[in-house]
């Protein structure tokens, strides 16, 4: 019997050595890895793929002339908008000693779950897509910074416009996701700060199709404005059904989550004159226009709202790497202590690592397209809002 035990152990040893031989990887000095995580599958894949392409675009541009001192390999991982998958992806990237920094996530729950992991490994984590406040402000980590503006900033703008149009009584319809509830709370705060009033906030679920009960309630409340806190699919449903049920004389506004051309395509004529307090308008700068041109020349998928932020995230990481070399700690410090020039403007961090500028823009829907309000025919007086009686 002891003989058998020896045999077994021997077998394992052979197995382990055979397999173990391959694990040693010769490290190549010139090559440095950077990471990208986003929803490449599942419901959020379109945004994730747009961001991924934008990220790759910047990397390619930087490497194009061959003067960049390092060979760059981008490791793309999928979080599938799912925290558990995201944690695995983050562990994979952050624990890889060759990875020096990463650009991450669209969904806040995923971001909340991974921020600790990147901190544990001291890897710089540049957020191109999550809006939850706590990701940046809920900890004292140096690693995470965020390029995309917070929802607070965005809702301040929305509230400003509400006052501007003299619409003070609002109803919020929010979806019950982290995004919807966050936007709901922040719009409420911003509006009330300016003397406005939220009559009621009504929750709906993602995937819900019939909103007649909600709209009936809204009609009873008789508000001056409806703010939809959520994303495109349900927002479009709410808009279509509220018009159908005769709710035409109120202003309709939403957060960046509905700033997709799909909104106009789905709601068609009903979209006219609705507002979105949206993200950066890429076409407002030369750099932005160049980005759009370069992107469209290379990819067919749209870059969605988050493309420019992912593009700038790549710029930040590559600049830091070039400046201080492949050292995680130095990169973290460098990123946090510098200002970067991106397509969205000059990126400056506050003390927590939140970008202060982000090119927040108010858009109005004109002929099923989101048009910067200042440039629209509504602002110039050519058209009048359909909700003005």
């Amino acid at each position, binding site marked *: 019997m002891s003989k058998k035990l020896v045999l077994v152990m021997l077998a394992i040893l052979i197995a382990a050595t055979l397999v173990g031989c391959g694990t040693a990887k010769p490290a190549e000095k010139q090559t440095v890895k950077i990471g990208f995580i986003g929803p490449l599958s*599942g*419901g*959020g*894949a*379109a945004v994730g793929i747009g961001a991924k392409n934008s990220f790759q675009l910047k990397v390619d541009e930087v490497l194009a002339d061959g003067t960049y001192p390092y060979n760059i390999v981008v490791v793309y991982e999928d979080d599938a908008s799912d925290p558990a998958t995201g944690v695995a992806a983050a562990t994979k990237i952050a624990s890889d000693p060759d990875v020096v920094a990463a650009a991450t996530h669209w969904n806040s729950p995923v971001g909340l779950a991974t921020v600790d992991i990147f901190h544990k490994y001291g890897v710089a984590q540049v957020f191109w897509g999550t809006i939850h406040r706590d990701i940046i402000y809920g900890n004292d980590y140096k690693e995470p910074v965020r390029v995309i503006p917070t929802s607070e900033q965005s809702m301040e703008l929305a509230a400003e416009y509400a006052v501007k149009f003299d619409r003070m009584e609002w109803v919020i319809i929010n979806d*019950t996701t982290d995004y919807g509830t966050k936007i709901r709370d922040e719009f409420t705060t911003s509006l009330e700060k300016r003397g406005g009033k939220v009559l009621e906030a*009504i*929750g*709906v*679920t993602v*995937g*819900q*199709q*019939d*909103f*007649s*009960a*909600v709209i*009936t*309630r809204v*009609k*009873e409340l008789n508000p001056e404005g409806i703010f939809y806190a959520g994303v*495109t*699919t349900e927002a*479009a*449903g709410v808009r*279509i059904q509220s018009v*159908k*049920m*005769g709710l035409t004389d109120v202003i309709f506004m939403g957060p960046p989550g509905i700033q*997709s051309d*799909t909104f106009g*395509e*789905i*709601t*068609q004529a009903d979209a006219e004159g609705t507002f979105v307090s949206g993200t950066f308008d890429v076409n407002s700068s030369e750099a932005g226009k160049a980005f759009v041109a370069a992107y469209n020349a290379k990819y067919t*998928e749209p870059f969605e709202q988050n493309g420019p932020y992912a593009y700038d995230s790549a710029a930040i990481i590559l600049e830091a790497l070039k400046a201080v070399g492949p050292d995680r700690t130095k990169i973290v410090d460098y990123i946090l202590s510098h200002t970067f020039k991106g397509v969205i403007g000059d990126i400056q961090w506050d003390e927590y690592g939140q970008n202060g500028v982000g090119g927040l823009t108010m858009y109005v829907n004109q002929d099923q397209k989101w048009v910067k309000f200042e440039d629209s025919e509504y602002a110039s007086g050519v058209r009048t809002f359909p909700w003005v009686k």
Partner: protein
Amino acid sequence: MNTFFQLLISALLVSSLYTLVAVGFTMYVGVINLANFSHGDTCVMGTFLLMPLFLFATKMGWMTPLAGLVIPALIILVILVTGLWGAGIYKILVKPLLVAPRLILLLASVAAGQVIREAIRVIYPNGSNPQVFPKLLPSGGIELSGLTLGYDSLTIIFLTIACIISLNFIIQRTKMGLAMRAVSQNSDVSQIMGINIEKTIISVFILGSALAGLAGILNGTYYGIAKFNLGSNLGIKGFSAAVIGGLGDFQGAIIGGVLLGFIEVFASAYIPNGSQYQDVFSFLAVIAFLIFRPSGILGEKIFEKV
């Protein structure tokens, strides 16, 4: 009063869609005692089949002169395809597993649903995003003392009622319907009476899936939006409706669908903060039914056979 009628119409619309799904569910349970959890995804398949066909027809320029002809033709085509899909599901998946324990078949249908759902997402361009469903029906509507009755809503309700009536006709009056009813009660005796049981089961699958396809199209038409993952919810709701009505009972499924639609719409309208708990209400209703009247509204109390 006005809002009440508005809600009533919404409830009828939601009920229509649930009923169409529930009828298929209940028919499967009736003939081969299978709860087909991929049924909801078959609906979405209908939705996603119509969209490219519509685009194609528009591109070919058939729409402008002949919209009134082309659209019904497309709908019928889609319904046929989903119907055939149903037959395929039976042949490939269900039939080989009929000998296995029912749990296995149930799980297989769940897995099949996932495969359909994911396949739609992956194959359809930009499939993860919400898709614009083409306007098949004229917009506008009838104004009745401040109450708007959209043409599309009316058409959907009308179509559903028409479907239910014709299905009822098929089941109650035709030879095939007689065969279906007979098979659902006693498949052995049915065979002895000369019924081709295989053919009957396949026609049930074709009918059920065709209705699901129609439900998918109507769903898209009414809401104007299509998303790949709507099926799981539709399927569960359809199944719930079928259970409330009494599984295996055709008329029960109609009552169940209507009841579930009304519960959803009215509970979320009249219970404060109800909208975000909409699904909770319907599921609690289902659980209550299962506990207090497990055989459904129309099902009879069955003494356990020993």
